[in-house]
């Protein structure tokens, strides 16, 4: 390896054609020979030595791949640096001018500053990395030429201008910042990834390849056709986990290029007719309810502990006995206060009457249920484990994929969470929760209840609407198309053994839950395709009390068909077509069999 260092000593007055600034030209040359290399300053023939001090360390190598070249200084006026490079390393410590690495086939170029337009023009291999911005026409071919970048990769950490990837035929362009208009214009193949925003006319006249925009797009051309939502995009071996609208085009060219644009950052495109959650903080909304629990602790039968760290822990059903009203409040807290709840009595079959919870969403149903209430956060430290549910999840984004689907996250400085556990959270667990939610410990409110408690029974019945939405989502239904959710489920009597309690409370939903959703779908097909699969009856494990199923599975949850977790009866009403679809039924006999378990000690 030979190290060749050039220091700019005289800035040129006019642009310099500097094809000689390349490992290819330097290979096998001494510093004296390098200084003699020709450059063209405007119309004047000049020598490299006029502009640069040259130092060569090590034996000159005839093979350019053995050359490690460093150029220091502001080279903004030097064009064609690294042109036709086929190997070796070129580092520019400063800015560099037009046509950097034009037609390069191998090796690597690193620019610490900015690179001007036509960086990587028509490149066929190798790598260019620019830490600053680039000008327009990144990787684009010479004017009029219809064969663009063929292979290799270009990474820009800053922004890029217009027409990046023009006529691109292969390889990868990755831009951390924003891109200007006409991104991927006339692209044939290859991949362009823009992590920031991009200007109008993205993908115009593209025939193939993929453009991925993680930020906002200024527009989608009318000649692009929306195809689907995808949960990831691939760039080489790398997968980008985010929710994308996928478009194909440009149909004016008969093209089949793919345009992935971030769904959550481009909600206004809304090709699916989704209802996006806007401007609600599920944590903030529950603060009055939490305050009520704390202020009226005694009446509600709950115990409040202010932890030394500053976090507040409210025992609603562990040692505390709780109350029906506390159960309702806790349920509402879990739903981010985006619902109304009442409790009454309902007949199930001829001779069974049970206390029943009625629930109606008042806000965004998917945010209330999947975004808050869903028990999707396994809080795990060395000395503690619990399943967490409630609004705090919208801060910790657990699980992340679900929030991508909803395009929702909360940014409140208060976090409220319900733990279903048999012991109080430890110091480490509190710290973990606060950190993950990015709130101070003083802003953390932890409610805790075991399944074998009154509050536990009530709040599990209160999950009937969530269970249905979750199942529909698992079946591929877009939860953001649900406008309203209503449901009811019997409230299970409390059983002291948590496994049995878990079984009975589940049965209340699986065999006694009845839900109704108002949805907005362009066609009924979206509903017809899944409705029969939606209720619990569609599961192979349907038909006996959950406790029995659980025992048969050897106490292993993962052996149970996840499709079982659904309300007994599901009704979908499509407001766009006026049609209503129902599947499943309430099963009083199985509810009875389940309740018979109460007698087992």
């Amino acid at each position, binding site marked *: 390896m030979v190290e060749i260092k050039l220091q700019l000593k005289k800035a040129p007055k006019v642009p310099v054609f500097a094809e000689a600034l390349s490992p290819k030209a330097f290979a096998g040359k001494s510093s004296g020979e390098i200084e003699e290399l020709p450059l063209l300053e405007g119309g004047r023939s000049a020598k490299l030595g006029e502009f640069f001090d040259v130092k060569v360390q090590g034996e000159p190598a005839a093979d350019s791949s053995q050359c490690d070249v460093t150029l220091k200084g502001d080279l903004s006026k030097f064009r064609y640096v690294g042109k036709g490079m086929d190997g070796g390393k070129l580092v520019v410590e400063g800015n560099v001018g037009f046509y950097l690495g034009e037609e390069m086939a191998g090796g690597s170029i690193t620019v610490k500053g900015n690179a001007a337009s036509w960086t990587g023009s028509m490149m066929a291999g190798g790598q260019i990395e620019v830490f600053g911005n680039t000008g327009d026409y990144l990787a684009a071919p*010479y004017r*009029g*030429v219809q064969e663009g970048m063929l292979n290799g990769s270009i990474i820009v950490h800053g922004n890029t201008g217009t027409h990046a990837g023009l006529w691109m035929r292969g390889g990868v362009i990755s831009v951390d910042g924003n891109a200007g208009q006409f991104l991927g214009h006339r692209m044939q193949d290859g991949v362009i990834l823009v992590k920031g925003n991009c200007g109008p006319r993205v993908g115009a006249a593209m025939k193939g390849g993929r453009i991925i925009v993680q930020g906002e797009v200024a527009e989608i051309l009318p000649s692009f056709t929306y195809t689907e939502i995808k949960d990831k995009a691939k760039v080489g071996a790398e997968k980008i986990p985010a929710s994308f609208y996928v478009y194909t085009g440009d149909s004016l060219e008969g093209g089949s290029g793919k345009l992935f644009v971030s769904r959550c950052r481009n909600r206004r495109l809304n090709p699916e007719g989704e209802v996006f959650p806007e401007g609600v903080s599920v944590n903030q909304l529950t603060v009055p309810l939490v305050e009520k629990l704390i202020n009226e602790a005694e009446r509600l039968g709950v115990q409040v502990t202010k932890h030394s760290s500053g976090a507040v822990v409210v025992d609603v059903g562990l040692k505390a006995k709780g109350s029906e009203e506390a159960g309702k409040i806790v349920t509402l807290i879990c739903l981010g206060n985006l619902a109304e709840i009442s409790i009454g009595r309902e007949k199930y079959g001829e001779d069974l009457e049970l206390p029943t919870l009625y629930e109606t969403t008042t806000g965004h149903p998917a945010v209330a249920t999947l975004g808050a209430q869903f028990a999707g956060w396994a809080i795990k430290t060395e000395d503690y484990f619990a399943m967490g549910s409630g609004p705090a999840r919208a801060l910790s984004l657990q699980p992340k994929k679900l929030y991508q689907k909803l395009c929702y996250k909360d940014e409140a400085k208060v976090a409220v969470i319900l733990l279903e556990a048999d012991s109080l959270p430890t110091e480490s667990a509190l710290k973990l929760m606060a950190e993950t939610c990015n709130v101070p410990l003083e802003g953390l409110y932890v409610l805790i209840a075991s399944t074998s408690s009154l509050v536990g029974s009530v709040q599990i019945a209160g999950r009937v609407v969530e269970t249905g939405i979750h199942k529909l989502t698992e079946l591929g239904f877009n939860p953001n198309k649900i406008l309203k959710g209503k449901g009811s489920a019997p409230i299970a009597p409390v059983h002291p053994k948590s496994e049995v309690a878990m079984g009975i409370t589940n049965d209340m939903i699986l065999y006694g839950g009845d839900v109704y959703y108002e949805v907005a779908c362009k066609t009924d097909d979206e509903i017809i395709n899944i409705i029969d699969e939606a209720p619990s009856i569609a599961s192979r494990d349907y038909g006996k009390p959950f406790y029995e199923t659980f025992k048969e599975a050897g106490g292993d949850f993962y052996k149970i068909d996840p499709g079982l977790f659904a309300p007994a009866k599901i009704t979908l009403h499509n407001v766009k077509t006026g049609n209503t679809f129902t599947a499943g039924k309430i099963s009083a006999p199985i509810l009875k069999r389940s309740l018979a378990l109460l007698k087992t000690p």
Partner: protein
Amino acid sequence: MELLIKNGIVFDPLNGIDGQKMDIAIRDGKVVESVSSGARVIDASNLMVMPGGVDLHSHIAGSKVNAGRLMRPEDHFRDPEAKTPTTRSGVGSTVPSVFTTGYRYAKMGYTTVFEPATPMLKARHTHDELDDIPILDKACFPLFGNDVILLEYLKAGRIEEAAGYVAWMLEAVKGYAIKIVNPGGLEAWNWGGNVLGLDEEVPNFGITPREIVRSLCKISKMLNLPHPIHLHPNNLGRPGNYETTIETMDCVRDLAGEKPVIHLTHVQFEGYGGRDWLSMSSEGVEIANYVNRHGHVSIDLGQLVFGNATTMTADGPFQFQLYQLTGNKWTNSDVEVETSAGVVPYFYKRSNYVNAIQWTVGLELALAVRDPWRVFLTTDHPNAGPFTAYPKVIAWLMSRKARERVLSKIPRMARKRSNLSSLDREYSFSEIAVVTRAGTARSLGLKNKGHLGVGADADVAVYPLNPREVDPSKDYKKVRKAFGNAVWVVKEGQVVVEKGEIKTAPRGKTFWVKPDIEEDVLRLAAANLKAKFREYYTVEFDNFIIPEDALARPQVLKAG
């Protein structure tokens, strides 16, 4: 200034000189009997000497050439010409910049080149560009075959007035001969259509291409123009078009005189058999057979050369069809009153059987037409290939081996659909001199060009090749190299190329023809036209006329 080109091996077919060793004496831009002992001597011992090349069909200037330049930056950027103390910088490839055009022609030993398609309205532009092309003598052919005013005269059957109009127009725009492109078809193209046969009526005029061709042929004779009508026929570039081509040649058979009365240009594009691209075949020999039997016709090849080309013709509907076929970029221009034009870049592939058949058509024509005085070497630059490929074409004409080499590489289907492999003829140096200078000069009526007799313009090319030693049939590569790099070139007695480099780049002349017509007929034509200008044109009548002093070095040629 005197100059003596000594001991060269001279080919001057017009003067019956076929490879004799002799000296050429030059004084004041003309070939003379002898010069004084003080003359500058060029030692041409064992070198081949020919008159300067004369090209009668090469698109080198005008609005569509410029459109081609503008739309094809990619054509230029890999072929730059740096400036030198004697030459300007420029770019080359298929549509070179004006200066580069002059230099590259001169380096091949060419000294006269005619631009064959000029819309009258844009003639001023053509002349400005021609003026900028150094070294070469030039001229341009105005486009008459679809001119609305002319068609109106023909529709009314007023051929004398039509002749007056053509004469006035030629003089007004400083043109040289009558050019016809797709007669009637371009007028139809102004309405989005075309005319697909010699007897199909031109929309709105009720006359046929046959009548247009015949009338213009008669007018050309009436005006005693030095060059016959220069014709790009209907149906160019379509399979099966050779029948139209032969019909077109035949439609003026009765007008035959001493000289050819019709010149069909770039006939390669007009010699296709078959019904469609799949069944396409070469019918070059068929056309050659007609030419051999009929002395009233001359043709040039439009020989295809594999590689990059920029198709540009006044044939708008053909260009549009080519654009649809290739999906390449294109432009349409000059659609107003007089004509149309289109430009589409094209890459001729040896592996493409259609392109390969096209390649064979031109060579079939060249080899099967027996009289070299009626078949000329062109590539219809830059349509079938750039003029810089002439040496390649010369090598194909002179060497069966050179042709075999390409034949062995083209698709078998193309070989089967052509007669080329059965043609054994190989051109001699003298015949090459005919098809590249003597014949073209005679066809253009340039009495002082294309030969080295006393009184001729002293345009001379000396090629680095000893024709007595080199067997062109075997050493075709040497032939190709020599014709591409003249070692000396003299233009009007001035050494412009020395040792293969441009030594100086003087300005050439622009020829124009003053037709043989009564002055009062001309005045009447002008008076009639003045009224029409208000109706049809976007410029004033007086501004339309190009005065002679608008040309840098005009050279009038009186017809008759």
